[in-house]
């Protein structure tokens, strides 16, 4: 395959550090799922979108995991209720068969399409502990069986839906699987071993932070001087809030804050006047206890 490698910086909405981009390339080359962890709001989900955009693929197939999600539901679903209702119609023969009531789920469709897609399994840790383990085999071989479909209906199903009992992906272009986790629950060891792991860290340099904000704002939504000052002030606030707050502000809060500053016509100089409590600093925190905790820290720093 002579695809150009993922650079992490070619899209106009995302910036991934070279280390992250290298691991993404490694995952694609080895056809292994990529497990992304990091603080909420650091761009885990957007990473999948940027891979799709850089590779010229359609937007990722997103699977939002809920606590009740089962692995089978992602592959296929059986509409038993409709079948039950159909049994009441006189002279209707459809309900004797299973295949009219089977449809592929998001993961099943992505595999069955045979085309290269980016598959985003969002917040995998929310589901039951069995969920990741059940997915292991499918994510490795990109084939699965519809066990609810009787073998004798295989052909009829193939005719109607263009998939049979055995759904197999294209081995040359397997889906690029990106799995995100918030670390609410620890994932099973076997699952971790199969995935390539990348931890998105908070951007370390001011330049990276500035680039990220620039990429996320519409052109003309800020001015350079305000942005520079805002990023500098934000760094100070974040450092001061680490340890004392439950959720320190991350990039997504910074982007919103810069937007607000620009809309409200705040001058860059006024940010430097009160370095720890600049205008609208409250928007950077999400809970009452974090607001209180940070304001106490800031007061002590200013005093």
């Amino acid at each position, binding site marked *: 395959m002579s695809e150009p490698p993922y650079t992490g910086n070619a899209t106009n909405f995302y910036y991934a550090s070279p280390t992250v981009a*290298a691991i993404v390339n*490694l995952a694609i*080359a080895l056809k292994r799922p990529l497990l992304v962890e990091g603080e909420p709001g650091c761009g885990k989900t957007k990473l999948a979108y940027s891979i799709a955009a850089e590779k010229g693929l359609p937007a990722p197939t997103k699977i939002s995991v809920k*606590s009740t999600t089962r692995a089978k539901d992602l592959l296929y679903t059986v509409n038993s209720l409709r079948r039950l209702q159909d049994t*009441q119609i006189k002279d209707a023969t459809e309900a004797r068969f299973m295949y009219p009531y089977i449809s592929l789920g998001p993961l099943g469709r992505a595999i069955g399409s045979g085309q290269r897609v980016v598959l985003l399994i969002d917040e995998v840790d929310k589901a039951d502990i069995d969920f990741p383990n059940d997915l292991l085999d499918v994510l490795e071989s990109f084939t699965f069986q519809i066990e609810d479909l009787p073998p004798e209906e295989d052909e009829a199903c193939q005719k109607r839906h263009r998939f049979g009992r055995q759904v197999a992906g294209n081995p040359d272009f397997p889906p690029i699987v990106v799995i995100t986790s918030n670390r609410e*629950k*620890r994932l099973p*060891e076997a699952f971790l*071993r199969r995935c*390539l792991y990348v931890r998105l860290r908070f951007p370390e340099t001011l330049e990276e932070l500035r680039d990220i904000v620039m990429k996320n704002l519409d052109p003309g939504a800020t001015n350079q001087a305000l942005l520079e000052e805002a990023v500098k002030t934000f760094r100070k606030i974040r450092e001061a809030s680490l340890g004392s707050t439950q959720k320190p502000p991350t990039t997504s809060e910074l982007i919103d804050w810069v937007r607000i500053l620009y809309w409200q016509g705040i001058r860059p100089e006024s940010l430097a006047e009160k370095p720890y409590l600049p205008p609208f600093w409250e928007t950077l925190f999400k809970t009452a206890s974090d607001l209180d905790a940070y304001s106490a820290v800031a007061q002590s720093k200013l005093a």
Partner: protein
Amino acid sequence: MTPQVALEGLFFYLVREGFPLGIRDLTQALEALRGGFGTSSRENLMWLCQSLWARTEEEHRRISLLFEMFPPPTPEEIATLTGNSPESSGGETFSKPLGPQSKDRASQGDTTAIDFTSAENRTGLGIPASVTTVPSERFVLAPKPLISQRACAVAWRRFRRPLRFGPKVDVDIEETIAAKAQDGFLPEPVLVPRRDNRARVVLLIDVGPSMMAWRHSVAVLGDSLRESQFGTYGVYYFHETPARLFEKETLTVPVSLRSAFERFSKTPVLVVSEAGAARATLDKQRIEATRVCLGQLGLAWRPVAWLNPMTASRWRGTPAQYISCLPSVSMFPFNAYGLVQAVDVMRGRR
């Protein structure tokens, strides 16, 4: 030395060190090498090993430590190994083969080994000579809890009490069919609330100084409760006997038994304490105090299961032996199987 040989050496070294790696991990790493990953420099190779084989910070650290331990060979060393003159090509050297050769290095005592020389010369305090032999194995400083997160999850899974609770969202197939059979038509399916885990448990943790050694293991158990989707659970801390309970590990916020009982009435309780086995003395007062206090707890919290982090063979002749014989309590060693047994007791099976 090619990166491929270095990678193979590293792999087998890591496997010997107890990394949970399989042949698949090696073949995939070699495939990545062939794909051009990790070939540009030593750091690059380390990066490849870490991203493919390490899943925790500790594993990351151990791999980079390994790269530090085995620096790239000097041109002279290459010359003696290969019998050729030092290579003048600009190609990056990766590492010496790891394995039998590396043993000599370790025994020579490099910078990371602990310096025992002053003790060997007996210039320091009078330590018995048998203690001062240089350990041949490197210390593994990664915490090894008595019980793994996974084992906890498996045990708690036996403790589910699924009850239908909340909004009606699930289809009750049997009732739906019954309704259809009765009326002859089906306007809408019969819905029932979703099943939810309503199991409750109270965890009492001894945080006395004698429990220090197992703090990490106990924390794993405490964390597993949070992750196991219990209906409600309470964690209280105590010192020696659970007569006085505290909300915090630091034993700072006391909780009255009455309020704890009101919050969790008729709830199974799991006690984690060494029950005097760590000190290996027969503390009669402690036995009596524990007996009285278990009687008190048993009024509201039943059944009582007890996990003891001390090995069962060390309970003899200590309060642990006597407490484990009390009819109101079932004591098990603190490990994966012990927790499963404790869960069975808490479910009402003995």
